[in-house]
């Protein structure tokens, strides 16, 4: 067991993967000698050198496209997009190329590409560097999406993503970099599509990822003091999504709240609620609830951004209303 934080475990996972497989390499802006804009790749260049840790120009299309071409000819690339928002400048490569290449060619190629992106709000980066961009990719079959919210999940899902023969987008939440945790030998075994139950309760099922998982857990503690018993589930991956874990909990709680740091429209929470109500309508004792961010871009000033993000007190208050509905 090693105590480590969310920021530093990234380089540990990448280094372990690179030691295990000589075809794994890393490309991205400033990932080499600089150690990454967030210092998430520190030390890799020193150990693996410029052949396997490649600094690129500021060229996101070329980064992702190169990863695609390298993957279809036998390598196992890890491509870093510095901020997930920058997926906007290479959206064609992600949505039209990476996601579709296997399908369009009738399965002639495999695309073991891991795309790592720093994601999410709460750190004061304003509208173009703070978006919960995972939602942009929900309607693009061909991509798998991992949203780790703990040190253990980040290590395990990164290793799984790199070993996977399909494209996996791994969103690293930049407001969790200081979060501490432990990795051990069995951390590796985190399959895609397997939720984790953060805490068990009987009155309500709260589903949340990344930063909101932690706020949901804190809210559940406060609700417990009032006598409301909440289950908190972290799906850990959005594609594939562990619907069964949520449905299983609903069979006991009959109430569902999703907490997400994203506006409602087209979000994973909205999709989850739609699937759950369609598939398990008779389980519900109350209308399902999505506790999300405002339908605005992410604002800059701390007071504005704090108000934009669902807070612990807002989660407590909305879940309380749900339970007494």
């Amino acid at each position, binding site marked *: 067991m090693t105590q480590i934080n969310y920021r530093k475990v990234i380089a540990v996972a990448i280094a372990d993967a690179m030691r295990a497989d000589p075809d794994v390499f890393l490309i991205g802006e400033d990932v080499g000698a600089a150690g990454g804009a967030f210092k998430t790749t520190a030390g890799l260049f020193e150990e693996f050198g410029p052949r396997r840790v490649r600094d690129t*120009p500021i060229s996101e*299309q070329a980064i992702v496209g190169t990863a695609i071409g390298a993957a279809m000819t036998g390598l196992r690339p890890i491509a870093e997009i510095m901020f997930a928002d920058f997926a906007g400048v290479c959206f064609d490569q992600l949505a039209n*190329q990476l996601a579709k290449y296997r399908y*369009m*060619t009738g399965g002639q190629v495999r695309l073991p590409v891991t795309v790592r992106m720093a994601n999410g709000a709460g750190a004061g980066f304003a509208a173009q560097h703070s978006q919960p961009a995972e939602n942009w990719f929900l309607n693009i079959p061909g991509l798998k999406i991992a949203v780790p919210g703990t040190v253990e999940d980040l290590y395990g899902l990164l290793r799984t993503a790199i070993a996977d023969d399909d494209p996996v987008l791994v969103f690293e939440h930049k407001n969790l970099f200081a979060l501490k945790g432990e990795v051990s030998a069995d951390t590796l075994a985190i399959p895609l599509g397997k939720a984790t139950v953060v805490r068990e309760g009987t009155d309500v099922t709260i589903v949340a990822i990344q930063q909101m998982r932690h706020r949901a857990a804190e809210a559940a503690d406060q609700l417990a003091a009032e006598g409301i018993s909440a289950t908190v589930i972290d799906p850990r991956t959005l594609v594939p999504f562990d619907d069964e874990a949520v449905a299983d909990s609903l069979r006991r709680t009959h109430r569902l709240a999703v907490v997400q740091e994203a506006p409602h429209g087209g979000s994973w929470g909205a999709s989850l609620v739609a699937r759950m109500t369609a598939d398990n309508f008779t389980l519900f004792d109350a209308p399902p609830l999505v506790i999300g961010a405002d339908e605005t871009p992410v604002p800059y000033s701390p007071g504005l951004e704090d108000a934009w993000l669902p807070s612990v007190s807002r989660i407590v208050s909305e879940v309380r209303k749900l339970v007494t509905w």
Partner: protein
Amino acid sequence: MPVELSPATASLAGGAPEGAADLLRQMWRIRLFENTVMDLFTRGLVRGSTHLCQGQEAVSVGACAALRPSDTMTCTYRGHGAVIAKGAPLDACFGEILGRAGGLCGGKGGSMHLTDVSVGALGSNAIVGAHLPISVGAALTSSYHGRGDVSVAIFGDGATNIGAFHESLNMASVWRLPVVFLIENNQYGEYSPLRSTTPIDRLADRAAGYGMPGEYVDGNDVVAVHAVMEAAVARARVGQGPTLIEADTYRQVGHSRSDPATYRPAGELDRWLARDPITLLSDAMRAGGAHPPPEDVEREAAAEVDAALRRAMDMPEPDPASRLRDVYGAAA
């Protein structure tokens, strides 16, 4: 610093070379394939759209003749010719365009996505310029393993104005990767003449901005295209980095099936038809005398195309359940 290539001197002006019949056969296979696809489309047997390359055959044939089987090639939605030139079987190409189970991609790709990885044809791409970084990636794999394989991206003049072109040439040059960027300048970006969208006359001049050699070649002279490509491929193979080649040619048909190309100035098509790449090579072969008569080559190619079409028409439709496969490799 731009590196100068020694100019490729070979061209049809020097007569038809040894192997001319093979080049001619390949060009006829493509020409007759495209004519057949046009006919199939008119008969309602091809869905969506098709983008044909009649008149441009010398570019892909000359280019792919300079490659070895382990070299890779990517191309555009106007890519039937390039994929055939790289070695894809005609029947499976027809089958894919007809949407049959025996098509190259099992009927999932169609005309704009002909792909045969087994012969190094890594894909026809329907997004302008998007395959350039993918070819850079294939070149990176070659470089990573020290294989000496070369990656070629064939694209139109229109693609030189999209961002992926810039990013790809820049990164390939910084990393000195074994890739050849081949502009198939057919004078029109979709419906717009090059002059209306591009402020320079010679697209190859853009190479200077990326510190790589830029070569211009008559793209209707298959021998000249082959010679220029051989020099660029040789350079890439020994680690001297990428080259940008502009091959001037002409799209004898409209942009797609729905385009009658009425915007072309009077006389332009006739001038280019007089320089048809197949005619130019055939004339050189006749002048040289020693080759099989070009008519024989055409007749053999026609028989081959007809037989391939018959096989493709006999291919079954895909099982509807197959639409659910190949999204992911492992179950998601």
